[in-house]
């Protein structure tokens, strides 16, 4: 009896699948999304419109998508990986020529009922294709240079298109997620050490070249980097947002200022308070307690993903689950670092909480794959 035959036999079928879903994970996702509804209600000045209500509808849709994806066996998704990747690349190329310009970048395809952000889709598709690749690749070839080069190219192609939009934040997330997946797949650590050393060396060289006769970047480019790294050098421009964000967060104190009592968000001192900076409003109104609660919910989502990944014997399931969890982590970690003034402002939303349709739908679909891996795991 082959391994999979055994696996299929022990896999639940029909509606019994619902019972075998990762319900704690589902409940955590609903909790986080609910926190989002509450904050969107608050930043709208105590109104379900214009943000909270559409967000709830989208979450409902997202939940349905997650269930549907979850019920489909995981090997179907594995087989779809390459196709998903190719479609995502096509969408990125399409958006390059026909996308809707928003916030100074070409990011969306307007589908009429929603705006599709191909880079969001690509985050999941990349994880899928890399997981499928390493599932297919015989183990002993994992660290061979040629077989390392293929996934690197798979990562760099979408990164290039996203960077061209330009969306630096997402392209860094793509690089990190791709690198993370290769690390999980067991690529030899020396490759990572070499890349990290090369990047550090390059950055050091570029910065050392400043003011010398072999300067590698123009002066204005250096100045732009300065502002990017330290917004306080431009207090009325880029620095204004981050300063106001820190004030809002810090003024929350232990307990926060109370629901809908946050002065920074209510009086419009906060920028983008319903999207990228929504965590600031939460931290202002619910304080340290509220912030830690959300952070804990996020951490628990990661923990349940890790448990799922380690409890399955299917390599694709493990890798795709961990990859999606890593993506999710990068999302909220970068966002929170940004609003706390630890990282430059790079326009990454807070997952499941920030207002925004396509990001949430794609994320719910991704968690559908995690659920599918959980339901259909070989026991």
């Amino acid at each position, binding site marked *: 009896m*082959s*391994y*999979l*035959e055994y696996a*299929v036999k022990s896999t639940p079928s029909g509606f019994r699948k619902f019972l075998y879903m990762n319900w704690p994970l589902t409940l955590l996702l609903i909790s986080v999304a609910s926190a989002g509804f509450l904050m969107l209600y608050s930043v709208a000045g105590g109104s379900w419109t214009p943000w909270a209500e559409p967000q709830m509808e989208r979450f409902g849709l997202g939940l349905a998508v997650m269930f549907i994806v979850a019920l489909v*066996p995981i*090997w*179907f998704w594995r*087989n779809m990986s390459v196709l998903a990747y190719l479609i995502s690349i096509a969408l990125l190329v399409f958006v390059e020529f026909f996308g809707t310009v928003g916030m100074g970048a070409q990011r969306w395809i307007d589908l009429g009922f929603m705006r599709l952000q191909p880079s969001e889709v690509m985050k999941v598709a990349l994880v899928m294709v890399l997981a499928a690749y*390493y599932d297919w690749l*015989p*183990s*002993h070839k*994992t*660290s061979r240079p040629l077989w390392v080069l293929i996934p690197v190219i798979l990562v760099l192609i979408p990164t290039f298109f996203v960077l061209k939009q330009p969306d630096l934040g997402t392209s860094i997330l793509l690089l990190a997620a791709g690198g*993370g997946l290769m*690390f*999980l*797949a*067991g690529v030899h650590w020396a490759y990572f050490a070499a890349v990290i050393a090369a990047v550090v060396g390059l950055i050091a060289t570029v910065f050392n070249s400043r003011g010398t006769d072999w300067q590698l970047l123009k002066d204005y480019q250096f100045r732009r980097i300065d502002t990017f790294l330290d917004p306080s050098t431009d207090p009325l421009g880029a620095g204004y947002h981050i300063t*106001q964000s*820190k*004030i*809002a*967060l*810090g*003024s*929350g*104190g*232990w307990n926060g200022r109370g629901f809908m009592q946050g*002065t*920074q968000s209510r*009086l*419009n*001192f906060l920028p983008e308070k319903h999207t990228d900076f929504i965590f600031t409003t939460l*931290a202002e109104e619910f*304080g*340290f307690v509220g*912030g*830690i609660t959300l*952070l804990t919910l*996020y*951490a628990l989502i*990661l923990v349940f993903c*890790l448990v799922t*990944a*380690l409890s399955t014997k299917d*390599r694709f399931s*493990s*890798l795709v689950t*961990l990859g999606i969890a*890593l993506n999710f*982590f990068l999302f909220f*970690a970068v966002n*929170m*670092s940004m609003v*706390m003034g*630890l990282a430059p402002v790079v326009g990454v939303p807070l997952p499941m909480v920030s207002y925004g349709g396509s990001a949430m739908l794609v994320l719910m679909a991704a968690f559908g794959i995690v659920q599918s891996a959980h339901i259909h795991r070989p026991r």
Partner: protein
Amino acid sequence: MKQRKPKAQGLAYKRLPRRALILGGLQAAFIGGLAARMRFMQVEQADEYRLLAEENRINIRLIPPTRGRIYDRNGEIIGQNSPSYRIVMVREDAGDVDQVIAKLSELIPLTSDEIERAKAEMRRSAPFLPVTLADQVTWADISKVAVNAPALPGVIPEVGQTRQYPRYEDFAHVVGYVGPVSDYDLSQIADPEPVLRIPRFQIGKVGLEAKQEGALRGKAGAKRVEVNATGRVMRELDRQEGEAGADLQLSVDADLQQYAQARLAGESAAAVVIDCETGDLRAISSAPSFDPNLFVRGISVADYRALTQDNYRPLANKSVQGTYPPGSTFKMITAMAALEAGVVGPSNTVYCPGHLKVGSRRFHCWKRGGHGTVDLNLSLKRSCDVYYYDVALRTGIDKISEMARIFGLGVKHDIPMSAVAAGLAPNQEWKERVHGQSWLTGDTANASIGQGFMLASPLQLAVMTARIATGRAVKPRLVRSVNGVEQPSGAGEPLAVSPTNLEFIRKAMFAVSNDRGGTAYRSRIIADDLRMAGKTGTSQVRNITKAERAAGVIRNEDLPWERRDHALFVSFAPYDNPKFAVAVVVEHGGGGSKAAAPVARDIMLQALYNGTPPLEAYPVADREKIKEQQKRLEGDRRPKARPTEKDRA
């Protein structure tokens, strides 16, 4: 569903859980870092950030205090705050700004300058901030705007407060005026109160308004408002009311002041009425005057030029700022100094041949033929100059100068008005110091009749006369009470002179205006219990050459105005129980007995009767003329509502 073979569990497969845990560990560490950062910001630094958030949202707006009002001694209002109307516009409520302004200018007069300025300001400021379209708008125009409000979105009539002086010219020199704080004003103050930076805030510029700014201004209140990121006021959090400025009550009697101004009209002159007991200044007038309301509004160039180019100098406050050679009104001081020094007794005589030779120079008496034998009484009554040359030379300038100070000449009196002059009572040391020359006997002769270096303001002459009348060091008092709190009276200690000697002087002054042949006999008061004692003065503003004297001194009427003599008169009444002292100076008025004494008499009677005096108080011969004059002044004195610049346009 495609079946697949289980794969060999290679090295990479074994690595997965380990790598997953490593990555998980890194993630956990990062999450821990985020939590620590959050704790640091929200727990340790919470207070700092809370403060910053409060600074962000809370603005403190000042509430300008209501300026204290100014009353006369009887509670008549002299300086008040009246509503001023202006029209402001809020851009975001107006919609089409140009169209609304066009509609508005059909209703009320708006100059294209005003419109341009307002539009420029609107472009600069936030859309919700009101911008002034028209200031100092009449009530009629405000009503028009209010009635048409539905057609004028964003246009709001606003009521503010502005200073107003209902007595117009009468108190221009006493009270002064207020105006908006200028950059120059701010530069003069070391640590300006924030209230001064409120647009259109008014502060005292000259006169009492400036000198009593501290009392009149009050304390600004403050309100704390919550603003949003664009500065729009969301709500008022709390307010702390300010303290209104103190109301001042002056010692001046507005009706008497008005009479004095009217009586002086047509001349360049000053008159001061002082209460002999308390030092209360009942009137301090300077003519011609100006309308202080013009300055509050911002005076037009044409109006200002008219004021500065007038020969009679309407902007100068002649009663306290103007100093004049006191002329013969100084003779009381010379006489007192001589009596106190013991160089002459009241019955000692001096022979006046019409001149006195001092050194090589001849000092003339005003009467060419001389007065013959004169004693103290006669010398004052006839105002013989030679008598004073003689006694002064025997007394010495230092004693005369000291006597002048005792009576308040050459001393700066402390009253809250602008540019109060100290005058000059010179002595030897002064000339040495200032001119670097030694004092000559001729200087003493000049000083003895109030000429030469001697200078006094009408206020000082009034104080001098009051001190002669009471023998006490009366000090002038302008502010009677502040917020109902009585200010110290100006009543003073007895002067350090012999009362008997002073009595001789008073008697002689009585003779001046009550004995036939006295220089002010024609301006006497008939009423028995109110009779007046006085002294005329005529001070030269030019030198009379030997040649002119030989040919006969040119009469004042034949000289150009600015070369004529100043006419002075000082007096007190009633003689038996002095109540008021009056000093009058008519610039280039000619002789004191002709030009100044009648004015002083009229003002004195007005003060004594506290209103229009009966004709019986005047000498029979003058009554017809006085009756006419009273009728004329009565007409002049009705308060006139003056048209504003805008009304005229």
